[in-house]
């Protein structure tokens, strides 16, 4: 029991240190928050002129008023979370490169606790930045339910993205190589996640690929919760009804996200048993 308590304290301290480190990097906080705003404006207004939003609404099974800006809002929030949480892999490589990780790894604290603390921190920080973008949706839709109900799934998406980021970080020794993953892997995965256009409108081979893309399930989860809560129309008594009619979709996507989280944490645990984190 004492050991479990100590492990919890260690996870909490690692989480606290990670959040502190993130908060002190003000420029990074500023750019990751403003970037989605800029994207929202350019994508939302630019692409909104050429994309058929009615078709999108029918795919989403959403009957309320819709425009392209509304469609990409949850995608944009999800993208923010993915970028921020995945960047914890960057910090992990940086810690390896600068040697900060050495004394941590050599301490008696099991490596899985260190990794778990970092993954949880990535989830919380990612979700907090997602929340900042989500506040914009509150200003736009005047619907607090959307902001509140989306937050827990943002944490799940953040943990998933952080786990994927740290999984890849294990294999890299310098930041430059790791960052090339962003263009090689993360941006294509985001494009195939349905954040900016519905995957259902793409060719069948792209749909097939997206089924193996963890971010697809992450973005789907955010979109489903976002539109479900938007449909509450400021009346939370409808929640049961919404979950009854659309609940299977929400729960299904949460299940897939949890599946990928467990998969990546298991892979990390197996790899760090056989591979040095040096």
């Amino acid at each position, binding site marked *: 029991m004492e050991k479990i308590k100590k492990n919890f304290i260690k996870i909490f301290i690692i989480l606290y240190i990670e959040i*502190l480190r993130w908060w002190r*990097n003000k420029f990074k906080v500023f750019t990751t928050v403003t970037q989605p705003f800029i994207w929202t404006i350019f994508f939302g207004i630019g692409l909104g002129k050429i994309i058929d939003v009615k078709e999108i609404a029918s795919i989403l099974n959403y009957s309320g008023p819709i425009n392209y800006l509304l469609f990409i809002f949850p995608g944009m929030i999800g993208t923010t979370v993915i970028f921020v949480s995945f960047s914890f892999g960057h910090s992990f490589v940086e810690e390896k490169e600068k040697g900060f990780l050495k004394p941590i790894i050599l*301490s008696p604290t*099991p490596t899985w606790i260190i990794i778990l603390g970092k993954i949880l921190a990535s989830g919380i920080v990612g979700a907090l930045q997602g929340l900042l973008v989500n506040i914009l949706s509150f200003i736009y839709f005047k619907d607090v339910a959307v902001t509140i109900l989306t937050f827990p799934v943002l944490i799940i998406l953040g943990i998933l993205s952080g786990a994927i980021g740290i999984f890849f970080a294990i294999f890299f020794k310098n930041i430059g190589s790791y960052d090339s993953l962003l263009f090689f892997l993360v941006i294509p995965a985001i494009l195939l996640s349905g954040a900016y256009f519905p995957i259902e409108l793409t060719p069948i081979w792209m749909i097939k690929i997206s089924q193996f893309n963890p971010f697809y399930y992450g973005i789907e989860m955010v979109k489903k919760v976002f539109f479900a809560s938007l449909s509450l129309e400021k009346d939370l008594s409808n929640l049961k009804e919404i979950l009854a009619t659309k609940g299977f979709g929400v729960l299904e996507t949460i299940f897939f996200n949890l599946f990928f989280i467990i998969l990546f944490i298991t892979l990390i645990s197996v790899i760090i048993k056989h591979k040095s984190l*040096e």
Partner: protein
Amino acid sequence: MKPLEVKNVNKFYNDFIALKNINFFVDEGEIFGIIGPNGAGKSTLIKIITSAIKPTSGKVFIFGKDNVQRSIVSKFFGVVFQEVNLDSKLTVKENLFFHSILYDFSSRKANELINYFSEKFNFKKYLDFKIEKISGGTKRMVELARELFHNPKILILDEPTVGLDINSRQNFWKFVLELNEKNKITIILTSHHIDEIKLCSRILYLQNGEIAFIGKSEEFLTSYYGKN
């Protein structure tokens, strides 16, 4: 039981032999030097001893315990590495506090240790400074203090005074030698400085990943550097 026993250690990186057939032990309370030219395998050996990397074959025992049991053996040693590895985004106090928690200390005990060591090693006034704001010499003292928090029986120093000025080096060694004399801490040292090598009771000289010499430091200094 010996503080350190290294048995038949080999380390290969594909075709490159980093370490070949390394066998030695270190006695309690001695200052043991691991020296050799750049690329001889000193840092690799230190990493294997501290279990930061695994050997291709062979075993390392710390007080008779296989060093693969990291959670047990890591409490026996403290390591000051060649490069500073304090987190530059955190303050001195935060770095030390974080380290204490990882070594199972309560927050009350951690604060006690921070106060005690910061006074002893003269960096109390820098506790709330970020690491990036303090001098190289102070960083070294902070690292040394950090590695002593858990009262280790072995102190591993991997070229610890690289980049330090003469005063900082003297200051650093004053504390290390005091620890060796008063607390009987075993010191394992890698260095290129002849005056630091002279402090060692025995020397292991590595060349191209193999042991070229092991024995008393006087013998080594006579054979390799002449009597002066």
